[in-house]
């Protein structure tokens, strides 16, 4: 029909305007991946992934189990280095610095790229020491007062301070699951990282604890570049500004979260988020 041509250009215009509005498109990219391939031995786990992750925002990685989203997440702080059969090719930069540069200190990299795991994993130490651990080993404080300040600020940012300020010497493992996860987030932000990676941070938490962690993520995004892997579509929709869908090792579609969840372009994305294949 002759009206179609007119309509499509209008659609593109609307989408462009919306995209700029939702994602703050002018924001510079923090993490840039170009043509990343990952092999576990002979298995080609991640195929030619290229994506820009903007600073000061949350990007969600979604996709079925085994799609490569966690593998990709682990490339960003080089956790895959610990797996002997794993081989990574392509380029990943953080602030234009190649993180696979042989001259790069991996320990320093992991201080810049914090990680929060699926199951809360506090050290079997006091709440204080859990948070103070990173700043101590990276020498971020020169005296006790400074360290106290870092610990307090990190716990405050993680929304945990009010709940634990009178029991900082209690063991981190004595906290509830949700509190432990927020303690792990406090531990991650104590070293002032640039990027925080979260691998299903709420899948072991009840809905209330999940809501608290999601609120926290929403507050932290003004200061950090956050990447979250989640199996909960609703969670991705709630906390992220951009969403990337992985399937069978490829990045199928990446875009503003609002568009991905209301009007995805790729049929595979549509099928996955509407529950049409698993």
């Amino acid at each position, binding site marked *: *029909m002759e*009206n*179609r041509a*007119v*309509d499509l250009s*209008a*659609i593109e*215009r*609307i*989408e462009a305007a919306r995209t700029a509005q939702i994602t703050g498109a002018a924001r510079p990219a923090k993490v840039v991946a170009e043509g990343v391939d990952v092999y576990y031995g002979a298995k080609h786990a991640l195929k030619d992934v290229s994506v820009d992750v903007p600073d000061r925002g949350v990007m969600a990685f979604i996709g079925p189990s085994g799609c490569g989203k966690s593998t990709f997440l682990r490339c960003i702080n080089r956790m895959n280095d610990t797996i002997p059969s794993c081989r990574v090719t392509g380029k990943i930069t953080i602030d234009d610095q190649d993180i696979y540069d042989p001259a790069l200190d991996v320990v320093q990299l992991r201080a810049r790229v914090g990680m929060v795991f699926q199951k809360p994993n506090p050290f079997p130490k006091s709440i204080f020491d859990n948070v103070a651990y990173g700043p101590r080993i990276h020498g971020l404080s020169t005296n006790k007062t400074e360290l106290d300040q870092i610990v307090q600020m990190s716990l405050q940012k993680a929304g945990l301070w009010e709940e634990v300020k009178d029991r900082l010497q209690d063991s981190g493992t004595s906290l509830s699951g949700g509190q432990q996860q927020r303690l792990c987030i406090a531990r991650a932000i104590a070293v002032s990282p640039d990027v925080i990676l979260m691998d299903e941070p709420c899948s072991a938490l009840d809905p209330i604890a999940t809501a608290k962690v999601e609120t926290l993520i929403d507050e932290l995004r003004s200061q950090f570049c956050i990447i979250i892997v989640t199996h909960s*579509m*609703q969670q991705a*929709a709630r906390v992220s500004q951009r969403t990337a869908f992985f399937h069978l090792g490829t990045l199928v579609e990446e875009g503003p979260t609002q568009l991905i*969840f*209301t*009007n*995805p372009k790729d049929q595979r*994305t*549509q*099928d996955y*988020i*509407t*529950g*049409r*294949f*698993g």
Partner: protein
Amino acid sequence: MNEHIVRSYEEELKLLDRRMAQMGGCAEKLLGQAIDALERRDPSLAESAVASDATIDQLEREVQEQVIIMIGKRQPLANDLRHIMTVLKIAGDLERIGDLSKNIAKRALAVAGESYPKPLMTGMRHMTEMVQSQLKDVLDSLTELDANKALKVWHEDQQVDAMYNSLFRELLTYMMEDPRNIGLCTHFLFGAKNIERIGDHTTNIAENVYYLVHGVPIAEDRPKGDSTSSTLFTAR
């Protein structure tokens, strides 16, 4: 389209579509009955039209309830989300179409005892046929998810508006000719306005079908043909 992994979700969507199809069918039938009753001055047909509006209202309540339950239970996304929200809005339009048709049937009851000149009905019949065909096409576009068909309906509504304009003038002329016609013509005028409004609801449905298919609204201003609300007609 692939089926949902959760079969009961798939069944719920199909049930929703069935209810919509049923509602659409009822609305079409009600409009046809109302206009036939007006043309034939058939009070019993008019009464049965008035009574059958209750079925549409009932269906709308069922659709609303089902949509709310599905949002709570399934948290639909992407095309499912658009599907469910669109159906809810379309159900509202169909319910209004039912009300407007019922209003025509009531007017048919009011004027059933009058005799009126044949040309009065010709324009009315013609306009109704246009709207009926629009309504049929838009309901088909919903079932077939055919955005182009919906867009065509959307564009063609201005013909209905133009028809309403001319009917409006015609009725005014009859009233000016003989004040005894005023009562009857007023009923016809409101009847014609109702049909014009049904056309508008039909275009709303078309807009929703387009959104359902493409995920973005129609990006044009709709051509409007009804100028009666901005025109003053005076007897000379």
